């Protein structure tokens, strides 16, 4: 059962990953975290503000997950995304994939984050240090 959540409070990878670790069919687990970094294209970032069209973003990410599960034969994929104002170093997105083998998990992880960036109605405003 895939989990997709949009949070207004900080993400907690320890808790998120525990929910994926209960499948005894899995032999591999791959996770990805997207962080707020200080420099982007030569500009010094102060903070990032994320907003989402939450119900649609959840639906779109679930569609991406369904496609990834079919295409890469992985067992489960969970995605958690932040909204609101994030400081440097905070986690903007966390995702985890379980499967029988690592190769499929890595491929599915890359696919889901790449498609999320293209399709999910989530926006990021960069606030720069002047």
């Amino acid at each position: 059962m895939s989990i997709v959540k949009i949070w207004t409070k900080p993400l907690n990878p320890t808790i998120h990953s525990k929910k994926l670790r209960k499948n005894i069919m899995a032999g591999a687990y791959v996770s990805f975290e997207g962080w707020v970094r200080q420099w982007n294209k030569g500009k010094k970032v102060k903070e990032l503000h994320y907003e989402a069209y939450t119900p649609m973003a959840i639906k779109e990410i679930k569609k991406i997950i369904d496609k990834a599960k079919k295409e890469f034969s992985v067992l489960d994929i969970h995605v958690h995304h932040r909204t609101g104002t994030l400081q440097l170093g905070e986690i903007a997105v966390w995702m985890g994939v379980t499967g029988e083998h690592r190769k499929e998990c890595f491929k599915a992880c890359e696919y889901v984050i790449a498609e999320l960036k293209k399709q999910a109605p989530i926006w990021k405003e960069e606030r720069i240090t002047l």
Partner: protein
Amino acid sequence: MKVNVLYFAHLKTITQKKEEKIDLPNQSTLLELHQELKKKYPHFLDTPYLSAAINEAYTHFNTSLKEGDTVCFIPPVAGG
């Protein structure tokens, strides 16, 4: 007929609104709604820079609208 239009990101800044109801002739398309909004907000983004969704699903600009639909014009996304 009335449709509910949601605004996010740059479009929220331009319209200074999160949402509003717009009155349109029956069976108007998304493109016609966009034209209305462009008249109301001259800085509203043009269609090449937008995607469109009705009731939380992406669709084409030539899709006809129905009474009570929730519409969102989606500026370039940047999640992750």
